């Protein structure tokens, strides 16, 4: 694994994506199978297990290194893996390998080993490695590789390496597994494109462009279909005779997180849609979905309280037929027929087509999304009726027109220290609106400030602290923030009775007196509740 270790080391220090991609491609070109495939998996985060625990590292180092010297060193270096990598003393009496085993061998040995064997093998490798290699081994082994390569970026690199399109890689990614030997054979022109033979392949998505003012004239009502733009996450459901798979927009298999959507689908199909959560028969806001997105394996309780729901809006495969070359309208007919046959299925609903005859009625629709729509709608989508389904972001086919963010002027009430790089700053703020001469909190936001603004704000907070409890400071009610947000909801969690969705601080109003900040009552007409909203019925199947 020495080549992999030097790759990791270089990636760790390298700044630009271009240079990172060059390093990985060079590694792939020089490294034989199956090692390079495992390296790809490790970097892209698809090796989902740890070889050993942090506590195991501590145990083996305690047996080898004077604890006082280790403590002095750990203090100086600031990080345990690196300290162990540097400090690990060779033991001339201990067995040693002439060179480190290949990456695949290391992975095989660790995954087959018992607890006791893990420790023994770890020590053998540490004894046989350089400091740089030990660091890579410890990072790899604890699953803590952070060298700036995301799964998505890795697919791009592989595409460049083989002169392919990234959507081709995405299409087969979920169907292949480490060490990806057939993928490399294809990328190097030595073999055919890997056949994803379980019939549950991901189809790369067609994406939309935001509507620009200048696009409006080219949007003729008769040429386009309109739908709501849902505030969930984009997913693809692929079914084949009883089995099914759910993919995220990048082709990651997320079936395990949404088991209720992947069971018992008859026939063969690939559907494009939006994942949401339905509570007591009503589709809930993004917050509800967030509960599910945080869990890779949901508990039974969560499955019951927050069942997943899929709003379908396109169909790419119907039985033996690939529909992607057909027009939107033709695909829509397939989709409606497919849904009709399953209208009883509470997990599914069909995204309705919205009536729109002119730009004016379009603007109207968008305004409905702005002011009164259910809280899982964030705008409208426009799709050319004659568009085929083209992977990527082709121009002129699909547009999204999100509603404008709303905003209020609120007063800063509490500040809390941030975490990570900004942990020394107060970068986490709670703010409120006036109600009968009193401020009631309506939300909390992190800053999106420049460091300079943050420093100024930080010193303002220190100088205006009224009381302090733990990491939180309560400040004098003097400073006004302009807070933008996507929507308002009723909330029993806040004393004010309201909660903001996606609040963010758009400006600090150093100039504005706190008395002139907004009253709580301005939120009343903006409230969106799925239960009372009129358009909610448009979406029910």
């Amino acid at each position: 694994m020495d080549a992999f270790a030097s790759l990791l080391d270089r990636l760790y220090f390298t700044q630009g994506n271009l240079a990172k991609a060059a390093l990985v491609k060079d590694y792939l070109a020089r490294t034989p199978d199956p090692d390079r495939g495992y390296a790809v998996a490790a970097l892209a985060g698809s090796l989902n297990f740890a070889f050993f625990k942090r506590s195991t590292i501590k145990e083996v180092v305690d047996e080898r290194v004077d604890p006082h010297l280790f403590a002095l060193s750990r203090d100086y270096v600031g990080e345990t893996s690196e300290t162990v990598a540097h400090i690990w003393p060779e033991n001339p009496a201990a067995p040693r390998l002439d060179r480190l085993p290949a990456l695949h061998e290391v992975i095989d040995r660790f995954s087959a080993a018992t607890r006791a064997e893990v420790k023994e093998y770890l020590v053998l490798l540490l004894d046989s490695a350089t400091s740089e290699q030990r660091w890579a081994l410890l990072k790899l082994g604890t699953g803590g590789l952070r060298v700036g390569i995301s799964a998505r970026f890795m697919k791009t690199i592989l595409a460049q390496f083989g002169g392919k399109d990234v959507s081709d890689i995405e299409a087969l990614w979920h169907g292949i597994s480490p060490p990806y030997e057939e993928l490399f054979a294809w990328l190097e022109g030595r073999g055919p494109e890997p056949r994803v033979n379980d019939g549950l392949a991901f189809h790369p998505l067609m994406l939309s462009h935001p509507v620009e003012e200048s696009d409006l004239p080219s949007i003729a009502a008769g040429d386009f279909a309109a739908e709501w733009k849902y505030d969930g996450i984009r997913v693809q459901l692929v079914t084949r005779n009883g089995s099914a798979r759910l993919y995220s927009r990048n082709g990651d298999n997320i079936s395990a997180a949404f088991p209720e959507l992947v069971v018992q689908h008859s026939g063969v199909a690939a559907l494009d849609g939006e994942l949401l959560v339905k509570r007591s028969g009503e589709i809930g806001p993004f917050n509800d979905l967030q509960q599910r997105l945080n869990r890779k394996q949901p508990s039974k309780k969560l499955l019951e309280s927050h069942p997943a729901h899929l709003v379908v809006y396109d169909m790419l495969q119907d039985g033996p037929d690939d529909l992607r070359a057909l027009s939107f309208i033709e695909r829509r007919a397939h989709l409606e027929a497919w849904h009709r046959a399953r209208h009883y299925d509470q997990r599914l609903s069909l995204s309705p087509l919205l009536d729109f005859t002119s730009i004016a009625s379009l603007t109207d629709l968008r305004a409905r999304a702005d002011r009164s729509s259910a809280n899982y709608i964030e705008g409208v989508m426009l799709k050319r009726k004659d568009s085929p389904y083209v992977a990527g972001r082709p121009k002129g086919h699909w547009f999204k027109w999100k509603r404008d963010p709303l905003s209020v002027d609120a007063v800063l009430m509490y500040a809390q220290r941030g975490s990570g790089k900004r942990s020394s700053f107060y970068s986490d703020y709670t703010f409120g609106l006036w109600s009968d001469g009193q401020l009631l909190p309506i939300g909390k936001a992190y800053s999106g400030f420049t460091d300079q603004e943050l420093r100024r704000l930080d010193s303002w907070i220190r100088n205006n602290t009224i009381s302090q409890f733990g990491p939180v400071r309560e400040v004098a009610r003097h400073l006004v923030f302009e807070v933008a947000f996507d929507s308002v909801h009723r909330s029993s969690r806040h004393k004010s009775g309201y909660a903001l969705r996606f609040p963010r601080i758009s400006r600090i109003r150093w100039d504005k007196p706190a008395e002139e900040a907004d009253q709580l009552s301005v939120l009343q007409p903006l409230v969106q509740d799925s239960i009372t909203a009129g358009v909610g019925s448009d979406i029910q199947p």
Partner: protein
Amino acid sequence: MSHPKEWMSVRPEGLYCSAGDFYVDPVRAVARAVITHGHSDHARPGHGEVIATAETLAIMGVRYGSGFCDRRTPLDYGGVMDMGPAKLSFAPAGHILGSAQAIIAHDGGRIVVSGDYKRRPDPTARAFEAVACDVFVTEATFALPVFRQPSVDAELIKLLTSLALFKDRCHLVGVYSLGKCQRVMMELRRLGYVKPFFVHGALIKMCELYETLGYRLGEIVPVASVEKASLAGEIVLAPPSALSDRWSRNLPNVLTVMASGWMQIRARARQRMVELPLVISDHADWDELIATLKDVGAPEVWITHGREDALTYIAAKLGYRARALSLLGFEEEDGE
């Protein structure tokens, strides 16, 4: 016999030998100074008489101009000089060109002030020689067990590999102007690098001195004399301070490299935005410090600039009497 502690002491000016009335590496101007080597925290201008190796005197001349002291007294390795009743001699320290350990013998006692030293081969410095003594004065720049340097070849091969992979990027290498610069150049020549080295103006004079003294550095071209775009894919050497300043901004598609013992600590390399850290040091690492205590075998060890806690601790464990000498004015971090 008398123990060195009876005729050696720490004064505000630095380490003082009362038997011979002179200082070793004083931080203020004194009448008589013994200088172990040319780095600026050891060799300062303005003394009356300076006793040093001929190379160190030449280096000081280049750095400070010919009037850096009133009288220069060269002393070769192995030569002996009477300093009143005491005797002074030099042994190689392996640190940089001309670096010496000062050996002071008096009344049957002997102390070795090693200055800065390392134990690894360096084509520009005579190898360290262990000299038996009663008191060994050691540096502690890298005195933590995490400082354990890889081989110079392994580090420089990283640079050559990167040059082969990133053919359009100017590899800007941060090196201390005295010692590190010329050592890196000679080692790269030994590994077969034949293209010119492009250098920052601050490195030129010292490289010329090395050439004059017979060290073959190969073709050296001042960066100022060439079209900047032509530096893509070349090695450019500059002092560390120039890595992030304006000077480097005109270079094409820079890949920042730094050769220093401090590069072992990842956070430090990242802090300086170094993309290719090369752990190449002219100081003893942890293993070398301990090996040196054993090779010299002095029952008493005095520890100067650096992280003395770990070294004091391990020296005591190994059975040596160890104490920290608080000398001011020496670089602990980022220095030479």
